[in-house]
């Protein structure tokens, strides 16, 4: 039995560390990003465990309040800027986008490599900030506190500024790639929905990120030169900072979730073996979410002192986002209806996503409602809500995508048994961690507090235990994924029997992706027309 992946693959040719560090191959850059974001995820995850450990019981447990402020700030900043924003677009997106549209590479390979190095530089600057004393402002760096804090806010915001460039360049590259490099026959409506999602994400990346960039520059100048723009003592306006910040950071929420939704579309269709229901609706809903995402930033500021009229308008606009999100959810459910669902590891993550993202989305409506938000503002309800969206949404989708494309990326199969076990443990641990926080928040537990009254103890303790359960799941996952490199079965080109383009090339693909430029004659989800014996036969070998 042949126990080695194909010799001619992007992983082996050319060889040597230098060939990786100077690569212009989008697949290798995707892998480099994957290493980067996973490192960031581990750092952010350890910080999260420290937060939960402090909150295990009331009163001081491990840290001083100052240290606690720094830990939750770093957890937020590392997870948002270093992990979740680059996670799906830069790591998985880089790997799959050209494969999905039949291109040899992204439009600007050198720029792509540059954006990875910019990511590394930004990460180094941000980590420097951690070791030079860390930041205690919260990841939002709200003025006027952030201009006065004696911690290393300048270095951290500079790091975020640099990371922004990386994000912009990736988005720019993707838009041009989708417009100009599609293979012959790949019309816009034959593109996999993952491509639509990455495209919509890229639009947000290039339209929102520059505004965050200039905002962080203003914050740095305020700290260094006291320009007075955000300082009320000098006639400035700290609320202006919040407007600028959320003009980026609310769309950034969709940078996090839209590519995840793209992955889910791929997974649900593939593992239900059905044509995706409402292809165009899902495609356009991605674009609609991207555009609406720019109109709702004020819902973060209902209690900031902006005008009541503005708050009402932002509240109403916020509700609109529920429409395209609902369209997606219902279309995925309709796709699964009467499908031949196989409960593989990626599909388990997709189903987890459907549950947790729906909870996250619906609780978003609570928070978008002006009157309710005044009560829930800055409580654990908000913490639970955005963890359901970011972890329950994005991370579940990321894990689903990583497992789905793992055989394509590395030419190895992981242990399906342990994969399913880990997926279930992570799902249980996740809900155990964050669901109690909805209750805590509605009972009035404020976010970012290092201490609490004894009445909240049992819920906090449950949440902390949940975080350990989730960690066990992640550790199992790390173990079987690392093991797959040496012991994993050779999956063949198309272990899932999928119809999208990336599965027509070898696993792992050669440097140029396809031996010959593919000619696209059908859509990526035409399972109904193409229940060919070949795809079903192949399917039998992959999913045990």
């Amino acid at each position, binding site marked *: 039995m042949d126990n080695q992946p194909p010799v001619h693959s992007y992983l082996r040719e050319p060889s040597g560390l230098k060939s990786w560090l100077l690569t212009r191959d989008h697949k290798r850059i995707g892998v480099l990003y994957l290493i980067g974001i996973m490192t960031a995820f581990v750092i952010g995850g350890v910080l999260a465990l420290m937060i939960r450990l402090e909150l295990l019981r009331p009163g001081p447990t491990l840290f001083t309040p100052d240290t606690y402020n720094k830990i939750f700030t770093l957890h937020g900043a590392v997870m948002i800027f270093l992990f979740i924003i680059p996670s799906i677009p830069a790591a998985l997106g880089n790997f799959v986008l050209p494969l999905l549209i039949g291109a040899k590479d992204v439009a*600007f390979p050198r720029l792509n490599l540059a954006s990875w190095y910019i990511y590394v530089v930004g990460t180094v600057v941000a980590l420097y900030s951690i070791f030079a004393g860390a930041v205690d402002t919260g990841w939002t760096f709200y003025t006027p506190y952030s201009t006065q804090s004696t911690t290393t806010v300048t270095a951290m915001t500079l790091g975020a500024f640099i990371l922004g460039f990386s994000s912009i360049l990736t988005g720019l590259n993707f838009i041009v790639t989708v417009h100009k490099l599609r293979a012959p026959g790949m019309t816009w409506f034959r593109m996999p929905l993952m491509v639509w999602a990455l495209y919509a994400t890229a639009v947000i990346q290039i339209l929102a990120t520059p505004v965050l960039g200039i905002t962080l520059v203003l914050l740095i100048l305020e700290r260094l030169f006291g320009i007075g723009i955000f300082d009320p003592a000098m006639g400035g306006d700290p609320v202006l900072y919040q407007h600028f910040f959320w003009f980026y950071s609310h769309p950034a929420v969709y940078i996090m979730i839209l590519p995840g939704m793209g992955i889910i579309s791929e997974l649900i269709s593939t593992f239900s073996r059905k044509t995706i229901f409402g292809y165009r609706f899902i495609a356009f809903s991605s674009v609609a979410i991207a555009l609406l995402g720019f109109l709702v930033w004020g819902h973060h500021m209902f209690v900031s002192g902006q005008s009541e009229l503005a708050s009402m308008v932002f509240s109403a606009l916020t509700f609109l986002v529920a429409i395209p999100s609902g369209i997606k959810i219902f279309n995925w459910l309709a796709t699964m209806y009467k499908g031949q669902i196989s409960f593989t590891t990626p599909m388990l993550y997709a189903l987890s996503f459907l549950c947790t993202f729906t909870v996250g989305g619906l609780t978003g409506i609570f928070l978008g409602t002006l009157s309710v938000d005044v009560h829930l503002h800055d409580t654990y309800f908000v913490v639970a809500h955005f963890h359901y969206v970011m972890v329950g949404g994005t991370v579940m989708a990321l894990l689903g995508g990583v497992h789905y494309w793992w055989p394509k990326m590395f030419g190895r199969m992981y242990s399906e048994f342990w994969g399913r076990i880990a997926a279930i443990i992570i799902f249980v641990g996740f809900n155990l961690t964050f669901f109690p926080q909805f209750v805590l928040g509605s009972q009035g537990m404020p976010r970012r507090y290092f201490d609490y009254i004894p009445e909240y103890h049992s819920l906090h303790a449950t949440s902390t235990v949940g975080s350990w359960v989730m960690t066990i799941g992640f550790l199992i996952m790390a173990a079987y994924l690392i093991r797959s490199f040496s012991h994993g079965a050779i999956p063949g080109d198309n272990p899932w029997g999928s119809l999208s383009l990336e599965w027509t090339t070898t696993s792992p693909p050669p440097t140029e992706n396809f031996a010959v430029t593919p000619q696209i004659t059908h859509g990526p989800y035409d399972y109904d027309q193409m229940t060919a014996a070949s795809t079903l036969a192949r399917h039998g070998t992959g999913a045990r």
Partner: protein
Amino acid sequence: MSVAADHPAFLQHHFADPRQQHESAKLGMWLFLVTEILLFGGLFCAYAVYRAWYPEMFYNAHKALDVLMGGINTVVLITSSVTMALAIRSLQRDRRRPAVGLLLATLLLASVFLVIKYFEYSHKIHLGQLPGKYYHFTGVPGTNPHIFFSIYFMMTGLHGLHVLVGMGVIGWVMVRTARGAYSHVYYTPVELAGLYWHLVDMIWIFLFPLLYLIG
């Protein structure tokens, strides 16, 4: 440069033909210019907010700016955009030497802009018309005049930084042009440098009236 019929040297391997490469590069540049406008957009936004809050202070403070110097600089930059466009036109006609000359003219005009800017800045620094907490000029009536100068220095400073970057880019394509890297077949980098330079010019055309003229 070898220009083989099916695979010219400038064509990168992942593009099917020169036209696809050219169009991709141009689209990429336009998208980049959009991000530049949004970067300045934050500052324009801050300008609008504080102008609405302190209209009289803005009126009084703007009189400290030298309209003559700003005006000359506007003419200088617009002229440099013209020389840049003519340089591209020359390359399209394979007239390389005039192209190098016109790029050099663009560079010189850009440095004239910066020299004038230097005189403006040093005059303001001398008078203490500085941003934020360093402001110690007493001649502007109204509350918080330092905010006007904060915005002035940030907008013109960021713009000046773009001029410097533009000069670097233009210098680079000028050297490459002199070495014969471009012809009517392939001149994409020069065209992209031109697009960038026009944006730098255009942003100044907005800054000048907003800061110097509107009373």
